[in-house]
């Protein structure tokens, strides 16, 4: 029983990371109808930003984290402005290839930083290696921080999309760009902001993940596991992304313990294939039919 709880906890923590990355996919997908394969790399860049702020400049953790989030948000806006906007309206696949290109460039650039890029670093978070004991249950503070931060972030995003003018404008643009544009919503600027938001969320995910997997140039590959999360949740649904992430994380955690070797890494993909065969719209996806 305790074993199961422990597995559940680590699964949820891992799932929150997948969920946060998937949240980035879904935000971008809803707003601009493009799929970003660079989300994992944005996460990696965010983690490196925080690392640079802490160990090179010597900032305290919270300041470095805040700076990393702001820097990544600005980077996301810039990215949208420079490379995504010119090909808006082109077939979806061009943009997928473009984001794959961005991912390549990000990985390549990071490894070019002498002495830092090719190494593996530990992010010195204040709660490193601390443990809480709830009865017999051992809770890693790193995992608790992931779960807590994800919950807070979800609350903030929910409030933003529900109550703020900006969030409602984003919802409108994601439902119908043209109609939103006619209503006077600056769709192009919103798209930029959505990329900024997605990059900021990715940066948070990166900093939460950093204590567990360390900071290195290839940590972005975890983004590929967030795709199953986004699909399981239904690609166009924000709560779905988090729930999908949790499902994938928990399945992976249990598969790693109970099933033979090799199932841990493939479990998310098996889940997503089954999901696509059984319920292609995901858990929270809307069922839509094309009208001709």
């Amino acid at each position, binding site marked *: 029983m305790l074993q199961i709880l422990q597995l559940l906890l680590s699964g949820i923590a891992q799932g929150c990371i997948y969920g946060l990355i998937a949240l980035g996919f879904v935000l971008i997908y809803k707003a601009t109808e493009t799929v970003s394969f660079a989300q994992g790399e944005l996460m990696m860049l965010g983690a490196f930003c925080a690392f640079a702020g802490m160990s090179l400049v010597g900032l305290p953790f919270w300041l470095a984290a805040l700076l990393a989030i702001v820097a990544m948000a600005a980077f996301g806006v810039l990215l949208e402005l420079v490379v995504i906007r010119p090909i808006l309206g082109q077939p979806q696949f061009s943009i997928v290839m473009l984001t794959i290109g961005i991912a390549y*460039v990000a*990985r390549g650039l990071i*490894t070019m930083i002498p002495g830092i890029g090719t190494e593996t670093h530990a992010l010195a978070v204040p709660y490193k290696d601390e443990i809480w004991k709830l009865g017999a249950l051992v809770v890693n503070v790193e995992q608790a921080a992931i779960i807590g931060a994800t919950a807070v972030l979800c609350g903030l995003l929910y409030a933003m999309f529900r109550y703020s003018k900006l969030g409602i404008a984003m919802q409108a643009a994601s439902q119908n760009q043209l109609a939103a544009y006619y209503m006077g919503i600056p769709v192009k600027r919103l798209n930029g902001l959505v990329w900024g938001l997605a990059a900021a969320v990715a940066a948070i995910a990166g900093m939460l993940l950093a204590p567990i997997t360390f900071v290195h140039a290839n940590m972005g590959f975890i983004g*590929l596991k967030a795709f199953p999360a986004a699909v399981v949740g239904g690609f166009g649904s924000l709560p779905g992304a988090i729930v999908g992430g949790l499902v994938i994380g928990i399945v992976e955690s249990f598969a790693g313990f109970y099933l033979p070797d090799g199932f841990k890494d493939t479990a998310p993909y098996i889940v997503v294939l089954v999901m696509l065969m059984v319920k*292609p719209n995901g858990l929270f996806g809307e069922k839509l039919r094309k009208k001709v």
Partner: protein
Amino acid sequence: MRFIFKTSYAQDIALARHGGHVFWYGLLGAVLIAAPWLLPEYWLAQLTFVLIYGIVGLGLMLLAGFTGQFSIGHAAFLGTGAYTQAVLANAGVPFPIALAAAAALSAAVGVVVALPALRVKGIYLGIATLAFGFIVEEVFARWERVTGGNSGLHVKSPKLFGLDISSSESFYIVCLLIAVLSTFAILNLLRSPTGRAFVAIRDSEISAQSMGIHLARYKTLSFAISAALAGLGGALYAHKLSFISPDQFNILQSIDLLLMVVIGGLGSVHGAFLGAIFLIAMPQLIALGKDWLPPVIGQAPGLQGLVYGLVLIGFVLFEPLGLYGRWLKVRTYLQLFPFYRKGLFKRQKAFTKSDRLR
């Protein structure tokens, strides 16, 4: 400028449109056949790789460029072909039979992948193939009894009718033959009703369906043919390298293959081979450029990724039709000189077109 006055349907679907085609492709063929005597061994090996990747590229081009179905797990088919060939060749099965078996097994795997693909489209299809690619890679790594696991598998040299064809010249000729045959197969397929159906599906599934095209059947067929060609390429790849391991067929390989068809030019048979030339030539160019760059940049392990990424971004932004599109523009410029207009190949934007069904 050449104007062709077509007077019959046979002329419309002819493989060689005019005498120029016959001459130039004939010349290309002659040079390729003479290559073993003209090129040093190293470059011949590179040319062999170009042909092998070209065969795989043809398959992916059929699927992505002509049927509009994107596969982000094509390395799985490549790997299936490679491992089938390796296992059969090591068991002493003759080369042509092993090759046929590799293509057939890959095609069968392609049909299996097509099953979820029939229900999903666009990005979901990409993710389904991505997931499939990961699972297959894991199978290669874990099924140690057959594949040798992560330690890899040595492949015996190929034998054709008792002759050893492992020397680089003879293997080059075999690859050339298979590449030419696959190219003709694809060209013929594309001018047949089946090929036209593929293109119709790419352009609009709904209008294709309303013209009486059985979507499921043709998508499955496209996946099967594409996977068979990838398997064929994989089989040759296994022999050429004579050693295969699961990490040669990972997600990066799949993305490289996609990069190849996108940079070559989606929707053109030439593009498959131009992309293959790019994919093989690029590491060489980067290696040459390394000496000119400051050591910090030149020796960084990510240099190749950076260059690939930049080239890919450049092509998507400025030349979406790829290398072949660039060639078309240059040719048109020369033919029309001095009347080429800037907007001749202008892309149309479609902001209201939505992939989401609404």
